[in-house]
């Protein structure tokens, strides 16, 4: 039972991340590699707020979302000008900077929480407060947050705002030529997307009670991007399909009773094979309509 609950919680975290990527990649047409960075912003904000300030779950999560949404301005202002390869490179730079901050904002033996040490460096931050005491309750909390995020996605993306995003993705110049400004649409959409990534990050930190700089690693960005692409972009169901697949694939290996080290490599191999198969046979993803170029 514990195992199922654990899977449920991870499913919720992955699904929120996939929704976040769906907004930025599927609806805005900007391929990003910075998602792990914004995930880390959420995770670290939550950790610091709960460990140092003793904040409760909800305000701590909100803090992460707000910081992440503000930090998304870096990406959205870049997206006013850039798209395609240039934007991907830009997002890679953002991810590298955030990872660098997580690893390096800790000078010598300075105490955590001072300006000299905000992240505790490679050691990370531990003893993060868990808002609920049992795994079952946490699963319910995660499900509720995921449900809330899904409802918000539905409201935003199935509205005229979502239509503007899709039109912008298809042909930005033509949309502007119809009198629709796109700058603010990008700012809002990116803030929403990065806010969702931070929500997932906060949940992750709260669940594990521990966070270190590896959460901001590029591997995660790539992995989550694969998940979102395999699930299918530009619609509301793809993220769930992608999250379920990403979660279940390693579990199948576990039941095949493979040694952990081998299973880890096998998992990556399977993702790779799966991605290649998808590009050949279903480039728009399991539930998608939109092909990521």
């Amino acid at each position, binding site marked *: 039972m514990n195992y199922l609950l654990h899977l449920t919680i991870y499913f919720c975290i992955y699904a929120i991340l996939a929704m976040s990527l769906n907004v930025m990649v599927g609806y805005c047409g900007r391929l990003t590699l910075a998602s792990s960075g914004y995930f880390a912003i959420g995770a670290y904000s939550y950790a610091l707020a709960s460990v140092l300030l003793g904040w409760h779950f909800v305000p701590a999560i909100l803090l992460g979302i707000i910081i992440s949404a503000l930090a998304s301005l870096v990406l959205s202002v870049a997206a006013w000008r850039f798209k395609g390869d240039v934007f991907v490179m830009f997002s890679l730079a953002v991810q590298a900077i955030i990872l660098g901050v997580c690893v390096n904002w800790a000078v010598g033996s300075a105490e955590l929480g001072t300006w000299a040490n905000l992240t505790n460096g490679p050691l990370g931050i531990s003893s993060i407060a868990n808002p609920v005491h049992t795994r079952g309750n946490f699963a319910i909390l995660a499900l509720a947050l995921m449900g809330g995020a899904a409802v918000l996605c539905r409201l*935003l993306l199935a*509205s005229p*705002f979502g239509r503007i995003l899709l039109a912008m993705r298809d042909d930005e110049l033509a*949309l502007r*030529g119809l*009198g629709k400004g796109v700058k603010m*649409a990008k700012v809002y*959409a990116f803030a929403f997307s990065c806010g969702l990534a931070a929500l997932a990050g906060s949940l992750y930190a709260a669940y594990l009670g521990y966070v270190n700089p590896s959460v901001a690693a590029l591997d995660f960005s790539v992995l989550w991007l694969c998940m979102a692409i395999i699930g299918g972009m530009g619609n509301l169901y793809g993220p769930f399909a992608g999250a379920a697949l990403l979660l279940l694939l390693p579990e199948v290996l576990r039941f095949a009773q493979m040694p952990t080290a081998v299973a880890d490599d096998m998992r990556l191999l399977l993702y790779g094979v799966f991605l290649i198969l998808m590009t050949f046979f279903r480039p728009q993803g399991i539930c998608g309509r939109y092909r990521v170029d």
Partner: protein
Amino acid sequence: MRQIQGRLTMDKEPAFDIATSARTRGSRPEGAVLLRASGLSKAFGSQLVLDGVDLELRQGEVVILRGFNGSGKSTLLNILSANLEPDAGVLELGVNGARKIFRFPSRWWQKLGLNNRFTPELIFNKGFGRTWQDIRLFSSLSLRDNIAAAIPEQVGENPWFAVGRFSAVQRQESTVASSSQEELELLGLGEEGALLAEKLSVGHAKCVAIARAVRAGAKVICLDEPLAGVDTLHKKKIVELLRVLAQREHITLVIIEHSWNISQIMDLATTLWTLEGGKLRVEQPSMAGLPPVNADNESDIQQLGRTATLTSRRVVGKEVATPFLEVEDLVVYRGRRLIVGDYQEDGGEIKGVSFTLRQPGLYHLHAPNAWGASTLIEAIAGIIPVARGKIRLNGKDIERFSPWHRVSAGVRIALARANGFQSLTVREMFDLAQVRSLPEGFDLLLEKQMSSLSGGERQKVVLWSILHGPAFMVGIFDEPYMSLDVREAERISAELGRLASEKAILITVPASTCSTGEGFYEVP
């Protein structure tokens, strides 16, 4: 919300109002000045495209903007719609009484674009809309959403309201959906509302693009080649739509069009702008200097499916022509959609397309939009797989040949929308195509990148690459004249005519569904 008045149906003859036409044609309306430009200049590198252009656009005018390939028509249109900033000049807009003046060159802080100065959205909100040569519908949206996205002042476009004022947004959405549907019905596309825009034929897509600009609230619409690549039936429909916009809706129009299409919209025009040598000449509209409409004089007609015909012109002195390219019972799908071939009415087996090109011979394929001429050509080129049928070149089956194998067997194909390699220079394009003698008129273009050329110039390079490259036996040209000016089209046409005395040449042209009777405006 305004709507396009008057139903436009496929089978109805355009209601041509001679009285209105006589009144408007030849006399410039004395409406308020909507746009005044003085000294507009624009250079690309060392080439000066616009050299101090002065112009004035009045309410109710219908302007036809013409000029040779590369004369700067699209550049001027791009400036008027703020897609491009001029190097110098003053632009003064005055729709709805509010005046706005732009002076160029802009200062450095204005170039940062932080204060929304000279942007397409700002220009549109001053009433200036446009359509594009390559249409640019939102390809993954349905037709209904394409129009809905353009409708102004929607509450739900603000994400805070989309969530916070959900019921108000829903109410507005149902109005938006029904008025978009209404618009499509006026265009005769009522049943296609859920169709994705990428699946629409060119003729229909151009109608939707115009309707989209109107729905978005444009008072002035600049149209970039609205009739290019459109078959006769849809041309009539678009001309009728433009007539409704100009005469009943009093929308001011600026239309870029090539000379052989101009004859069809000349009766609408009140003013003629001609761009030559970077200068703009303002004239009264007249048919002088336009190519006459030729009657077809083909000798042999082959019927392809229900609506397309293949006509060939007899080559004098070469009475014995041998079959060179034979296509037999060809059926081609794109995904699950049947493109080449006809379903039988009794539900029987699909009937494939068959025809023969003899050598020497000049053939014209007259096919309506969406008939699948481009797909047929891609199938002959080996770019997309065929589901059934035979393609024989000089008696040899080639349907299993790879595309390059077909080329070395003597087939040359110019696709309509694949205009060369964008990042190569013209010289590199010619080298790649093994062009031995450089044709005249390319001196200035040789060192330019393909991507920096105008649509017509790119087309020119591609056609000359084929015509002056290594020898071939069968040349197939998909709408070769589409974006060429008369001078260039005549040159290409003469070249093709000359080649046809030795080789088999097939040219596709957008045609009317009433086969050979009318509508083929051939360059003499």
